[in-house]
C-alpha cells in the first residue's frame, strides 16, 4: 500500500558507491589492479625476460645469440676477467658501506640525540641538501676536485703534505696517477654520494631508542661507554643494516661514477652496459645483471634476520 520513501533518482556516483559498499572486493580490485599490473608485468616481467636471456648463449664463431637453454653463459662469469669485475664491485660496495657507516653514525647520533629545534632542521637539510642537486653535476665536480691539478693536490702541496698524498697514491692496487684516476677516488665519491642514504635510516632508528632505557642503564651503574655498546648500538643496529642495504646495492649497481672517476677498470654495471650495448652479447650482460640480484637476496635475508626491516 505504501509507496515507500520518495527518493531522488540516484546518479552514477551514488550507484557506484553503493556497489563498493555492498561488494568491498570490487573496490579493492579496482584499487589494487594497476599497481599489481605494474609490479607483475613491468617489473617482474622485465626481470623474467632478463633471467631468460641469461640462460641463452652466444655462438662462439658467428656472435649470434643461440636461443637454447644452457648454463654456459653463467660459466663464463667465472672467467678470470669477469671474476675480477665481480670481486672488484663487491669489494668496492663493502668498503663504501663500511666507510659510510663509520662516518654516518656520529652524524646520525648527534642529529638524533643532541640536535634540537632549529638545529635539527639544519641537520636534516644538511644531510638532504646534496641529494637535491644533480648526481652528474656532483660527480663532475668531484672529478675536478680530485684531479692531478685540482684543489686537493694544490692544498696538499702548499701546506707541505704533498709527500703524504704521493704516498697514498703509491699504494699498490688502490693508488694511481692522481686521486681522480685511482680506486681511492672512486671510493671517495661513492661514499660522498651515498652517505645520506646511510645517515637517514640510522637517525630514524637512533631516535627510537627510548631515553628511559639509557637512564635505566646509568641507574644500574653502566658507564657511558658501556651504555653505548650494550644499549644504544644493538638497538640502532637495524638502522645501520637498513642503511647498508642502500649504500651496498646503490654502489653495486652504479655505472656512472666509475666511468668518470677511477682507473677505467670495469664494475658490474659498466660491464652490463657495454656487453649489451656495444657487444650484442645480451646473454652475458643478463648473467652479469643477475649477480647483484643474487648478492642482494643473500644480503637481504641476512639483514632480515638482523631486524633491519623493523626500522624502515
Amino acid at each position, binding site marked *: 500500500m505504501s509507496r515507500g520513501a520518495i527518493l531522488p533518482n540516484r546518479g552514477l556516483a551514488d550507484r557506484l558507491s553503493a556497489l563498493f559498499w555492498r561488494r568491498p572486493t570490487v573496490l579493492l580490485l579496482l584499487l589494487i589492479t594497476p599497481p599489481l599490473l605494474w609490479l607483475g608485468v613491468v617489473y617482474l616481467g622485465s626481470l623474467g625476460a632478463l633471467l631468460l636471456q641469461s640462460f641463452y648463449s652466444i655462438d662462439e664463431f658467428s*656472435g649470434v645469440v643461440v636461443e637454447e637453454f644452457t648454463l654456459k653463459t653463467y660459466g663464463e662469469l667465472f672467467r678470470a676477467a669477469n671474476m675480477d669485475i665481480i670481486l672488484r664491485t663487491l669489494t668496492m660496495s663493502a668498503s663504501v658501506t663500511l666507510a659510510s657507516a663509520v662516518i654516518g653514525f656520529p652524524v646520525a647520533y648527534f642529529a638524533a640525540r643532541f640536535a634540537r629545534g632549529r638545529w635539527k632542521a639544519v641537520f636534516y637539510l644538511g644531510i638532504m641538501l646534496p641529494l637535491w642537486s644533480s648526481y652528474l653535476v656532483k660527480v663532475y665536480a668531484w672529478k675536478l676536485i680530485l684531479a692531478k691539478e685540482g684543489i686537493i693536490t694544490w692544498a696538499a702541496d702548499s701546506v707541505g703534505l704533498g709527500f703524504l698524498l704521493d704516498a697514498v697514491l703509491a699504494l699498490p692496487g688502490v693508488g694511481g696517477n692522481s686521486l681522480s684516476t685511482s680506486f681511492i677516488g672512486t671510493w671517495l665519491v661513492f661514499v660522498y654520494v651515498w652517505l645520506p642514504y646511510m645517515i637517514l635510516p640510522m637517525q630514524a632508528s637512533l631516535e627510537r631508542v627510548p631515553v628511559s632505557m639509557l637512564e635505566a642503564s646509568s641507574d644500574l651503574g653502566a658507564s657511558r661507554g658501556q651504555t653505548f655498546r650494550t644499549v644504544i648500538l644493538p638497538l640502532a643496529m637495524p638502522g645501520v643494516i637498513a642503511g647498508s642495504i642502500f649504500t651496498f646495492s646503490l654502489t653495486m649497481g652504479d655505472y656512472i661514477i666509475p666511468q668518470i672517476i677511477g682507473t677505467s677498470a670495469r664494475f658490474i654495471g659498466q660491464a652490463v652496459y657495454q656487453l649489451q650495448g656495444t657487444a650484442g652479447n645480451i646473454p652475458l650482460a643478463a648473467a652479469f645483471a643477475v649477480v647483484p640480484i643474487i648478492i642482494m637476496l643473500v644480503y637481504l635475508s641476512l639483514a632480515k634476520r638482523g631486524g633491519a626491516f623493523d626500522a624502515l
Partner: protein
Amino acid sequence: MKSIRLMGTTAVAVAMAVTPALAQVASLGTPEGQVSIVAWAGYIERGETMAEFDWVTKFEEATGCQVVVKTANTSDEMVALMNEGGFDLVTASGDASLRLIAGKRVQPVNISLIPSWANIDDRLKDAPWHTVDGVHYGVPYQWGPNVLMYNTEAFGDTPPTSWSVVFEEQTLPDGSSNVGRVQAYDGPIHVADAAQYLMAHQPELGITSPYELNEEQYAAALDLLRGQRKLVGRYWHDAFIQMDDFKNEGVVASGSWPFQVGLLQSEGFPVSSVIPEEGATGWADTTMMHVDAPHPTCSYLWMEHTLSSNLQADLSVWFGANPVVLSACTDGSGMQTAEGCTANGLDDFEKINFWTTPVSQCESQGECVPYYRWVSDYIGVIGGR
C-alpha cells in the same frame, strides 16, 4: 627480441654479403613537410648552439620540410633506433652502416635523383661501407681520422711521429716518462689501433687489415694493449672528459678526434695533432634512408642538400671533419679553407683504416676474431688482465 636477433645475425649476414633486392624510389613527389633524422650530436645544427653554424633553416625555408633530429651517442643506439623505425634518415658510421644494410633497415638510394652525386669525392663514391655489390645504400656525409693529440709544451720542438708514445714506455722530450701521462680510447675498437701499430712494427704477423685479425694477430694486439694499460691512468670515452684530462690531469698524448684538438686550441690550450707514420683509424659517415621512410621526398631533398658545398664546409669546420665534396675546401662557400681541410686530415685518406665491425668470417683470412670477443677481452685488459 627481434632487435636482439637482428644485432646478432647481422654479423653473419655482413660476412655473407647478402644483397637484399629492395625497391628504390623512382621519382620524387611533393615534399611531405617533414624529415626526421637520427644523427650524431653536433651533426645537424640549426644555429642554436652557435648562430653562425646553421645548415637547416635555409633548407626548411626552401623545401618546406621541417627537420626533426634525434641524436644518438653510439653506433649501436643508431642501429636500435632504425630497427624501431619511424625515422627517415640516419648518419651511420662504418661500424653501423653494413649492419643496417644486412638487417634490411635501409633502402638503396637512387643516385639519379641526387644531382650533386657527381660532386662527391671519388674516393668515397663506391666506399665499401655503403656500397654492397654495386648498390648504393646512402650518401656520404663526412669523414675524419682518429689523430694523435699531444701537448706542444711537453713535446717542444720534436712532435711525436709514431703511435709508440701511447703504446710503449719511453721518456718524452720534456724529460719525464710517459707513464700516467697518456690515454687511450675506452672502446673495444681501440684494439684496431693496436693492430695497426703492429702492422708497421711487427710485419711478420701478416696483418692486412686491423679489423680482420686471426687468433695469433689478435693475441699480439692484446699483449700490446696490456703494456699500454701500465701507461694509462684512465681511458677516455667522452670527448669533454678527455679535454678536461688534458687540462687537469697532466695528460700529454692520446689518440683523439680533430674535434677535441680544435676546441682545445680555440681555448688557447697548447695542443696539436698529427697522423703518425703508422697511419690512423678513422670514421666515415653516410646518410642512409630507412626502408619504410615516411617522408621519402623530403629525405631525398635533404640528401641532396647535405652535398651542398657550404653545408659541407661549415660542418667540417664545426666538427673537425672532412667534407665529402672536395670543392667545399676551396670554393669559399662556407667557413672551410684548404688549410683547414689539410689540418683535418683530408690528404691522409690513404693512411686511414676506417672503422668497420670485425666479423668472424672475414675477407682477408677466412676466420677472424669477432667483435663481441674484442669487447670482453678489452674489458679484461682494462681491468689489468
